[in-house]
């Protein structure tokens, strides 16, 4: 799963700390989400999408695994 958090955040000129504050997580969590090391829970994904005024699908890109 990839996400557009860094792209959306930079477009809106929001710092990682501000976003972290807005969705009630630590800045480290935002860093990990942006780098793709950590996948957000459904609750956090919902909070982040709501923060940007978008849907979850618009922020988080689910890639179906190819076998």
């Amino acid at each position, binding site marked *: 799963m990839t996400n557009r958090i860094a792209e959306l955040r930079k477009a809106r000129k929001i710092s990682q700390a501000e976003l972290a504050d807005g969705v009630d997580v630590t800045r480290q*969590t935002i860093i990990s989400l942006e780098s793709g090391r950590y996948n957000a829970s459904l609750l956090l994904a919902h909070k982040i999408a709501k923060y940007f005024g978008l849907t979850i699908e618009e922020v988080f890109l689910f890639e179906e695994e190819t076998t």
Partner: protein
Amino acid sequence: MKDFLKKTSPYVMFAAAWTLILAAILLGERVPAQINLVLFTLGGVLMGFGAVGIALSRIRLSPEQQKEYERGETDERNVAIREKAAMSSWYWTLYMLWAVFMVIQIFVGGLWGVAISVVIVLHCAFYMVNIHRWNKKL
């Protein structure tokens, strides 16, 4: 109530520690050495927990730092890290106990072998109890 207990427990532990240590000193040779050892050990452990608890309660944080600290406690990534770390620790402890068990069985045997077997069984039993508990909760 929970908050009250959280605030007072370090002081209670600290006082209990001194009571146990004083009891061990005052009782001296009037009680068996094992009892004295238990009193000193329990006193030492409680003293450690109490002192650390009191020291932590004295740390004053600014409202921002306090908020950041509380956020760190409930942050979902931190929770996931703690869960994964706990799981890894459980496995590592189990491997270590098995290694100790093998060494003891080969070189020492006897009661130590039985003791380490009990520890391994308890280690696994606590795990299964917690799996059952969380299975009901989630």
